[in-house]
């Protein structure tokens, strides 16, 4: 039975956001008997609202409030008002994610130590190691239902598109070829069914085979009686007391009225654009540069993975849309081998698009029309494609700022997302595209088409973890260096991006943070 808390109840933990970070944290706190209010900006959808329709779901669940992309990255040119492809709904981007549940590799937690100082990058080691994270990864994998050793669930059967890619990969000598780990059930697990290979993972899984907080952590948190979820509640600013401890969150409700929820602890989990934006918008006479920002790092080091889309036209039909959208991963390049001309690694992940999205992303530049475009679309059913997911170096000037004059529907300054690719990012992207081309050509591709980056679904780093307060925003528990009862609980705490899809690490960090907050509560340290 969902709880209902008074806005004057200053004993609750207020979590802003209900996605992989916030939703997981809410459940893990509520299960410890800690009382939680979740403020979610978006609506709450039912399973029956989920459709196998790319644009219908895009329009229904995407975060479409205005954002401005600047900088030399191709997203600023092709999607100037949609830098990020994330979700505004209960469940957050765990509705949209494709289920790839990869751990960071050991070296990815200490990129600075491995590679030294890299010119133009603001590289830093995480204050937490792989050894420390490993048990939390196992817990997260069991929690989410990740195929592979932690659950014993078999990996997905290879679908057509992955069979094509994998055959090519084998022919050019790649060895690490797997259709997982995926947080998509291959058999019934945790009261959710096995995957039916419907091919619409990123529109929200209609049957719940893919883990999302929408139908796992959120209702379970409510069932404890310790959690209240308030949809359509957009956090506007976090307030603090005279000692500099946060004590309330002001938010706009569904009718646009301002509400104020008192809080004992505030956990920010609004994804890597909204989380720093909220901290910056919460500036006060005591914290003139925004909350938790004595380091000046709030909003900085924005990372979104080094990516490209690559689609090959094969000699015969593939029907790539049949089957789990991203269940196919090639990992031979996922190591730190600076001799390739860049640091960190990347994975090649199979990724299918439906016909509507293919038309939008095949060539979103002004040149994307005419005979060449149309003839490629006519070979849609012959295509197989890859998405590159690689380490994106932290650069201090890649950052979220507040627009000087333009306001959104809540009266808040519109966020500006600035990014210039580091030279290593470009080198990695070229390398990954070339390796993908070799895979597909080894199985007879007649054409290999390089797409510009999609709007970023992996957004990281804008409230980063650091051992020293001067280098980042939060400590190894996601706790603000400046304000002990303020936490960051999403991917914005990532110190570096890794070459891994971020959700599993977000969930592992949230489970770990929940245990830590529980300890601090029992010690009366919060």
């Amino acid at each position, binding site marked *: 039975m969902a709880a209902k808390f008074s806005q004057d109840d200053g004993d609750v933990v207020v979590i802003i956001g209900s996605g992989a970070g916030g939703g997981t944290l809410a459940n893990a706190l509520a299960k410890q008997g800690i009382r939680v209010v979740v403020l979610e900006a978006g609506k709450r959808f039912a399973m029956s609202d989920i459709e196998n329709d790319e*644009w219908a779901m895009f329009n229904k669940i995407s975060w479409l409030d205005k954002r401005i992309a600047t900088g030399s990255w191709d997203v600023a040119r092709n999607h100037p008002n949609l830098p990020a492809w994330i979700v505004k709904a209960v469940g957050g981007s765990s509705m949209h994610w494709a289920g790839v549940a990869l751990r960071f590799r050991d070296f990815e937690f200490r990129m600075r130590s491995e590679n030294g100082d890299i010119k133009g990058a603001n590289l830093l080691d995480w204050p937490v190691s792989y050894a420390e994270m490993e048990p939390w990864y196992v817990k997260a994998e069991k929690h989410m239902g990740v195929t592979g050793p932690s659950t014993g669930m078999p990996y997905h059967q290879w679908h057509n598109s992955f069979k094509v890619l994998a055959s090519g990969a084998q022919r050019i000598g790649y060895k690490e070829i797997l259709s997982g780990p995926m947080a998509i059930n291959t058999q019934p697990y945790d009261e959710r069914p096995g995957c*039916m*290979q419907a091919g619409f993972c990123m529109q929200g899984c209609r049957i719940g085979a893919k883990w999302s907080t929408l139908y796992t952590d959120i209702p379970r948190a409510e069932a404890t009686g310790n959690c209240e979820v308030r949809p359509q509640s957009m956090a506007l600013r976090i307030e603090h007391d005279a000692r500099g401890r946060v004590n309330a969150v002001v938010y706009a409700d569904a009718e646009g009225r301002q509400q104020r929820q008192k809080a004992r602890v505030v956990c920010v989990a609004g994804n890597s654009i909204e989380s720093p934006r909220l901290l910056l918008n919460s500036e006060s006479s005591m914290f003139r540069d925004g909350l938790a920002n004595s380091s000046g790092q709030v909003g900085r080091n924005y990372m979104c993975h080094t990516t490209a889309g690559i689609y090959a036209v094969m000699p015969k*039909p593939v029907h790539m849309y049949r*089957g789990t959208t991203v269940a196919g991963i090639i990992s031979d390049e996922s190591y730190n081998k600076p001799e390739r001309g860049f640091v960190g690694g990347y994975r090649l992940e199979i990724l299918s698009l439906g016909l509507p999205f293919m038309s939008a992303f095949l060539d979103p530049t002004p040149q994307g029309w005419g*005979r060449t475009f149309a003839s490629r679309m006519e070979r849609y*059913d012959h295509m197989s494609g890859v998405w590159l997911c690689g380490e994106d170096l932290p650069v201090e000037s890649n950052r979220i700022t507040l627009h000087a004059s333009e306001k959104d529907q809540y009266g808040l300054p519109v966020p500006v997302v600035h990014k210039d690719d580091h030279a290593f990012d470009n080198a990695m992207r070229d390398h990954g595209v070339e390796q993908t081309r070799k895979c597909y050509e080894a199985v007879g591709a007649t054409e290999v088409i390089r797409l510009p980056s999609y709007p970023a679904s992996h957004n990281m780093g804008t409230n980063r973890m650091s051992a020293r307060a001067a280098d980042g925003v939060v400590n190894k528990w996601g706790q603000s260096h400046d304000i002990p009862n303020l936490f960051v609980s999403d991917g914005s705490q990532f110190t570096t991006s890794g070459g891994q899809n971020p959700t599993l690490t977000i969930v592992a960090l949230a489970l770990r943070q929940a245990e830590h907050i529980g300890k601090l509560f029992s010690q009366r340290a919060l």
Partner: protein
Amino acid sequence: MHDSSAPGAGLSRRRFMSLSAQSLALLGASAVASQLIPVTLLADEARPEALPELPAGLLRMGRDIFPHDRLGDLHYAKPLAALLDKQGALVREGLKALQGSARERHGQAFEALAENDRVALLRAIETGPFFREVRSALMFGIYDNKALFPLFGYEGSSVEKGGYVNRGFNDIDWL
């Protein structure tokens, strides 16, 4: 489908358009039905008399942007007519300028030019708002049109059919 989509004597073209759009939307709601639409029927439906009236050159421009020779004019004309309803001034003025360039450079109307001349004129305006609106309307009108999915080898919504787990997700046989 064939009979019900034919324009009756008392129906204006606009009215037909609206009815036709509804029938397609209904079909679209049922992916089973959309897969059963025979290609010939789609072609037949695009008889010239069913076309909405469009300013000269607009249909030609639309066909040049996404040239699929297999698609009937109606599938271009419908989204273009809808765009005209929404952004009439932008489209008419943009088209007027395009026709002006065609006459200035070639002494003929845009639609009378050879394809490479038309494409060159369109390339020159591809970053402008008129071209971008037309392109966008057709992108949705053609590639997000459930009735046309089968022509591109796409099957659309699958969950109501049990996904593809028993329907060919791994049936590739030519590797």
